[in-house]
């Protein structure tokens, strides 16, 4: 999914690597400026490499929205050494998977390979990274595909709601953007734009290289010296960010022939660097982040049986990401579900958490950590996030304390400070007649 509501899992990141306080991996800054993070995990003959570039769709120049995504999509569609088809066949023959994915603030390149095929796979990864050719014919095809993808998602009412919500919440702000761009900007993109984006941002000093699996740091550094010796640093331009503004309370309704109303409501949340981040995590867990047992789930699903699922989240990023509550309910109960959810939130803001809720939330956040770091994929996904948010590889050891010291008063204060039902932006996608809502 390219539309940007980060899953909860990213909001609850970063826990400890179990009882012994062994660091998750090693960190080295290479001569070309790349940060290398390696977690040596020899038990399965495979290696996962996750290269995170610290630029994504937020770096799209005005009028060229969609270029970061188009660049990512085209990266594997031809290199100086291989046509798109030849590259695909080689990767398949090696049983390797290589994916490139642009996000708002980052672009990730992920390679999964058998250890025995690591050198061959890395050769292909290096080609893709440093010598893509961006053939015009491939670009034209990909453009049609991206547009088609956008069109096909219009049938998903949840996506339609989310998109309208973010457009309204972040006008003139990269977080309101579709990573894919818009039909008009996509149509205007030229090969030169893609080449320029690649030249500017696909640089080692803009990259975090994370590796997890059956390889040692020493061996991997040697492999990089062989395969990526030509990758040179360049200055990375800064991009400017507008301030996030709390919305005025309002409701947007969109009429669609659906059996369920899809509701998303929320406002501006917090940035990852906010010192209240941990109190907000605990607070949101109790409100609606914790699945079964959270206040929203208990009331709206278990007691009133209005929904299959309901949840709240704070998407904390470099800048203040959204706070959202998302639910689906049969058209006829849309207003009831919204009102009852608001009551839950208001009540929570008023009274704060109980001691029992606090204890349970903190216990879950701390104790669930080990379960998020079982596989090589888990670790390769987490390592660059730690680096991107300057959390350090000792963060896993610190996490239990960071959560542990959150008090009931802090959680209550966080609820009062970061939940604003008087600034709630609401989007309802529904069969409006059935939902008893006026058309706008």
């Amino acid at each position, binding site marked *: 999914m390219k539309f940007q509501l980060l899953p909860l899992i990213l909001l609850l990141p970063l826990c400890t690597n179990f009882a012994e306080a062994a660091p998750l991996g090693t960190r080295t800054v290479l001569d070309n400026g790349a940060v290398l993070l390696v977690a040596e995990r020899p038990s399965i003959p495979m290696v996962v490499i996750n290269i995170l570039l610290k630029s994504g769709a937020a770096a799209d120049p005005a009028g060229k929205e969609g270029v970061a995504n188009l660049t990512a999509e085209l990266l594997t569609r031809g290199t100086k050494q291989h046509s798109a*088809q030849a590259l695909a066949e080689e990767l398949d023959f090696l049983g390797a998977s290589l994916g490139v994915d642009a996000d708002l603030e980052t672009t990730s390149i992920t390679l999964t390979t058998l250890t025995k095929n690591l050198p061959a796979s890395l050769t292909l990864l290096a080609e893709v990274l440093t010598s893509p050719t961006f053939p015009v014919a491939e670009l034209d095809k990909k453009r049609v595909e991206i547009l088609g993808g956008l069109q096909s998602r219009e049938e998903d009412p949840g996506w339609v709601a989310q998109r309208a919500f973010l457009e309204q919440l972040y006008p003139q702000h990269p977080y309101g953007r579709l990573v894919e761009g818009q039909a008009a900007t996509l149509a205007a993109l030229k090969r030169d734009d893609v080449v320029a984006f690649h030249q500017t941002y696909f640089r080692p000093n803009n990259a975090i290289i994370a590796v997890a699996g059956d390889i040692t740091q020493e061996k991997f550094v040697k492999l990089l010296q062989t395969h990526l010796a030509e990758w040179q640093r360049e200055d990375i331009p800064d991009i400017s960010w507008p301030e996030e503004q709390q919305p005025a309370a309002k409701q947007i309704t969109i009429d669609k022939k659906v059996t369920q109303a899809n509701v998303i409501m929320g406002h501006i949340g917090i940035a990852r660097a906010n010192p209240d981040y941990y109190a907000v995590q605990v607070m949101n867990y109790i409100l609606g982040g914790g699945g079964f047992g959270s206040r929203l789930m208990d009331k709206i699903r278990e007691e009133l049986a209005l929904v299959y699922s309901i949840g709240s989240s704070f998407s904390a990023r470099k800048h203040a990401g959204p706070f959202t509550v998302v639910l689906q309910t049969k058209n006829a109960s849309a207003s009831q579900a919204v009102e009852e959810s608001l009551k839950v939130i208001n009540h929570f803001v008023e009274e704060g958490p109980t001691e029992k809720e606090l204890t349970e939330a903190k216990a879950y956040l701390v104790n669930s950590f080990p379960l998020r770091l079982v596989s090589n994929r888990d670790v390769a996904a987490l390592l660059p996030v730690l680096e991107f948010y300057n959390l350090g590889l000792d963060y896993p050891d610190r996490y239990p304390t960071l959560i542990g010291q959150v008090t009931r008063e802090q959680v209550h204060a966080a609820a009062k400070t970061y939940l604003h039902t008087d600034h709630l932006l609401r989007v309802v996608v529904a069969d409006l007649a059935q939902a008893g809502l006026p058309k706008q």
Partner: protein
Amino acid sequence: MYKRRFFLALFLLTFPFLSPTFLLAEEKNWPVTQETLPNGLEVILLEDHRAPVVTLQVWYRVGSRNEHTGITGISHLLEHLMFRGTPKYGQGEFSRLVQEEGGSHNAFTADDHTVYFENIAAPHLELLLELESDRMANLTLDETSFSAERKIVMEERRLRTADEPAADLYEQVSAAAYTAHPYGWPVVGWMSDLETMTLPEVKAYRQIFYVPNNAILVIAGDVSPAALLPKIKATFGAIRAGVPTPKVTSVEPPQRGERRVKLKRPASLPLYVAAYHVPTLKSEDSFPLALLSVVLAGGRSSRLQTALVEQKALALGADADYDRASQDPPLFTLSMRLAPGKRVQDAERALYREVERLQNKRVSPKELERAKNLVESSFVYGQDSLFYRAMQLGEYASLGDWELIRKFVPGIRAVSAADVQRVAKTYLREDNRTVGILIPEGKPIRERPSGAARGPLH
């Protein structure tokens, strides 16, 4: 949660083809202890000490396959009710106790089975034994829970099927492909059955199927079987055996002529599905069929991707799916989402041209090798997930023997180009297929939100 068999590939995106079947060839990678308790419960323990965590799964051999008309969806509704508490652990206690220890839990229902699972740090495994054995024996079923969960399931059906065009189409295709066999109705059940089902029906159903002799307990992770088995016997072992469960006897007769279903509804783009009746892993043909699905749609350079998406740009995506781990003969499906402005007839012709190419000419040794490499590497990557390994054990054990998984990679390696051609000819025949076409109707494109400021709802 419910899932239809041929949606697996959509859900398990990290294992893009034939997810449940990639297995470890090497003996040492499956250090399994197996025991059947006197009450009939099968216990399968897998030692994997990479991390101090465990996965526990209880597999009940009951799913939509065991239902009949009038009570379709009852297996899945019962799955929901299993979270509504027991006399000992009341409503909400299960979740609270598991989550407090950092554990996660959920369940899903499919056509062949209903599975409850938890992931938790290894020291808390005993809590799971206590909770899962307690609800196997002592579930509280009352009108309040029943009427609430019935409503929640209806919301789930609206969410996942009614407002989800692809799922809606698959439901129609299954219903047309199966005339006699229960795979024809949806796991979530028909809406009218959900509306009219009664609590006594659920109680009776539970009594038949939720017995230890119809269940498999799988535990994988940082465990010591010698220390664990006595604890399992003290909890699950104390539950009384039930009578043997009734057999499903319906057999789908051979299909004699193509069936076509059209579904007209709001949607963005046409969707096309061709579903063929094929055998399960009990047949040797299941190996070449598995490989055939990879040649067609595995990896980046597959035939359908190349022909339909890359070269002709007729489709935004194309897929082939076959899950051989099935109790009764499943469907082998080819599917594609059309690109904007393309005609169904043209995409269909191009799709069947690819099928015919496979029937008329053998795949090259290199292409065959590529497909086998994809299968084998996927299978190694599959070991990376503890949960997935436990899933494999449960799935194969529920089909009769977990050790069947050892035969998969050797079976795939032994397939010849002639085998692939033969199964393509035998099964991917026009007369053996059911075609489903989603035709967008109404207003597919969203209207612009007017964005006009309005006051709050109340």
